[in-house]
């Protein structure tokens, strides 16, 4: 038995050494890091490890059970593939960010308490945004800021939920929470932002296509799947998740049909696939949870494969839009084959990995008698075939020949894709090893004639529809355009709201402010010498009357009076600006006596009236 450390520590601290190394040594070190991490992981026995006392609470950095272990395995595996794919990149910050991102995801997966979970959750956000910014374009900078904005908001929502939860229960242990009070709802929504739930999703198709070619493999893997993990841990069997998941599977496929940017197509496809997982968590039976977890495992591999193949296309051609690509099978045949393997896997063709995982979730919905959900999931399966299964490989590698002739992808990229493609087929043909790792004992046989023929019919006749559409020319043409999504609310409506605040509201506020400062000024002026207030007021009133009088009857006398009153008013104004001086403004003492007398008279009068 060797001494083990928390899985997150190897990645996060290991990443810090990367900038110190050079050349081949660095390459070897990058590849070794996930391998060392994996050896460490398989030597950790199940149970609770690395408990650290912090104030009055216990932080747990190693809650190891079948659920967290499986996520741990696939995270290590995909980190190895992703870093192999990125081996040619000279930009250290991307490697560091990638490993910190993967490490913090592992941190969340093995966290046994809410505090350390939150800590790693936030590290994930900030390391992921580095992978977007590393593209160093104006678009990626803006998209990265929007990504940060959404995730910090989601993180704060989660934090608020955690604080309330800890106050309510007195415990920071992270386990089953269930939707019962405000704290749970806040945590639920905090998780939902990272899971790209409908309406909370637009950060995903916005930021992911702007990430770097190699960073994309990390991006497409970690954030959403970690969110799936925490949902599976805290909210299994929550009915709301069934519908959220089913809607997630269905709505992005419409967007994927009309989207021009192939990496954005894969972003919508990611939401669709995560929908199957969320739905499985919501159903909450042993079969559906198994389905979710195995789908996470398979999905990470085939989605990474598709993203890598599109990345290779982008690396060689610098283009990613359907309108610019086509005919690349001629110059990138291996990438093309790998892409088709990924496409077949995600569509769930028999003998490919998607078939053995997705069908568990669909079967679980059928066993639960959920007609609507079952139809939605089946409909979405056809949608997956359309956008990820056919559109992505077809427009990149076949379709009309774009005339682009380039080289095959670099060796390290081909190897990374090759490993992923092999695993997609291997898991599809031999699902046994994966099934043996699932949280619950598996009582499901994917390869019955009924399943195979049913799924094949579904997919092949869907493909027939596609062929008929293309041959008849009805299929929606690729158009250079973007499609509005929910991010419109903070990219356009937000700006409009800001303008509304700025122009009408702010100018109204300015007017009032002006009025107030003016009146304060005049009051201050008058108060310098209050003696002139009556004089000013009377003269001002007389002037007004004289002016209106003279405008009606234009006699010389009236006009003369106006000019006289004006000069008098000016004089009083001048006088009032001087500070009160006893020697100039002295009044006979009798005036003071008279005023006091009048006041006493009124006082006596009021007293008399009110007494009766």
């Amino acid at each position, binding site marked *: 038995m060797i001494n083990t450390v928390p899985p997150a520590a190897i990645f996060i601290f290991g990443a810090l050494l990367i900038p110190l190394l050079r050349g081949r040594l660095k390459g070897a070190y990058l590849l070794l890091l996930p391998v060392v991490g994996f050896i460490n992981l398989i030597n950790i026995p199940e149970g609770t490890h690395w408990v650290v006392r912090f104030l009055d609470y216990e932080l747990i950095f190693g809650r190891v059970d079948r659920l967290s272990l499986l996520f741990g395995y696939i995270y290590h595996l995909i980190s190895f593939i992703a870093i192999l794919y990125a081996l040619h990149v000279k930009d250290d910050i991307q490697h560091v960010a990638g490993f910190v991102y993967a490490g913090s995801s592992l941190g969340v997966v093995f966290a046994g308490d809410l505090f350390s979970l939150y800590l790693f959750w936030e590290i994930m956000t900030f390391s992921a945004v580095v992978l977007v910014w590393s593209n160093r374009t104006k678009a990626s900078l803006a998209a990265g800021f929007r990504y940060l904005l959404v995730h910090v908001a989601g993180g704060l929502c989660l934090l608020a939920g955690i604080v309330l939860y800890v106050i309510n229960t007195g415990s920071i242990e992270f386990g089953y929470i269930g939707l019962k009070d405000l704290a749970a709802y806040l945590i639920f929504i905090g998780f939902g932002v990272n899971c790209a739930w409908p309406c909370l999703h637009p950060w995903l198709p916005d930021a992911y296509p702007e990430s770097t070619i190699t960073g994309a493999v990390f991006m497409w893997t970690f954030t959403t799947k970690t969110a799936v993990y925490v949902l599976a841990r805290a909210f299994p069997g929550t009915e709301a998740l069934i519908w959220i998941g089913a809607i997630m599977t269905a709505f992005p496929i419409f967007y994927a049909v009309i989207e021009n940017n192939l990496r954005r197509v894969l972003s919508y496809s990611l939401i669709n696939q995560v929908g199957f997982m969320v739905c499985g968590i919501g159903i909450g039976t042993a079969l559906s949870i198994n389905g979710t977890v195995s789908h996470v495992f398979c999905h990470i591999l085939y989605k990474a494969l598709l993203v890598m193949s599109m990345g290779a296309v982008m690396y060689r051609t610098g283009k990613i839009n359907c309108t610019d690509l086509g005919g690349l099978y001629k110059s990138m045949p291996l990438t093309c084959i790998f892409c088709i393997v990924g496409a077949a896997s995600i569509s769930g063709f028999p003998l490919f990995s998607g078939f053995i995982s997705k069908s568990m979730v669909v079967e679980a919905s059928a066993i639960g008698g959920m007609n609507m959900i079952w139809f939605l999931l089946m409909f979405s399966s056809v949608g997956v075939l359309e956008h990820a299964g056919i559109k992505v490989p077809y427009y990149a590698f076949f379709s009309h020949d774009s005339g682009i002739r380039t080289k095959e992808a670099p060796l390290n990229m081909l190897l990374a894709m090759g490993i992923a493609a092999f695993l997609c087929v291997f898991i599809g043909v031999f699902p046994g090893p994966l099934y043996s790792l699932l949280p619950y004992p598996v009582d499901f046989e994917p390869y019955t004639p009924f399943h195979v*023929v049913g799924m094949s019919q*579904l997919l*092949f006749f*869907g493909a027939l529809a596609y062929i008929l559409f293309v041959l008849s020319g009805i299929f929606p043409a690729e158009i250079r355009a*973007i499609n509005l999504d929910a991010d419109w609310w903070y990219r356009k409506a937000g700006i409009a709201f800001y303008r509304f605040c700025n122009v009408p509201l702010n100018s109204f506020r300015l007017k009032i402010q002006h009025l107030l400062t003016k009146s304060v000024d005049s009051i201050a002026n008058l108060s310098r010498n209050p003696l002139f207030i009556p004089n000013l007021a009377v003269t001002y009133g007389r002037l007004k009357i004289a002016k209106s009088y003279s405008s009606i009857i234009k006699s010389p006398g009236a006009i003369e009076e106006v000019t006289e009153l004006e000069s008098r008013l000016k004089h009083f104004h001048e006088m009032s600006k001087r500070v009160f001086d006893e020697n100039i403004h002295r009044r006979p003492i009798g005036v003071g006596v008279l005023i006091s007398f009048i006041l006493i008279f009124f006082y006596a009068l009021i007293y008399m009236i009110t007494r009766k």
Partner: protein
Amino acid sequence: MNGEIEAKKEKEYLFDKPKNVKRLLGVFYILLLLLLTIDFFILKHPNFPWEGWPGFYAVFGFVAFVALIFVAKYILRPIVKRKEDYYD
């Protein structure tokens, strides 16, 4: 001039020949027929009654695909389509 010569030199690829595309489609259509016939000979274990109907999955797959394309093309696209520089 040079370009023309290169274009002539470039080798003809698999799907440049319409014959090969036709062959592929032919194989595909045969597979479709096969899937429909095999449907009658397999043991079914449906969860819903409609799953047992012959050819249900084939019809569903076809209809769902058609519905998806029509909704995306004729309803969603006119609503959400904008110029590429819309947000700039």
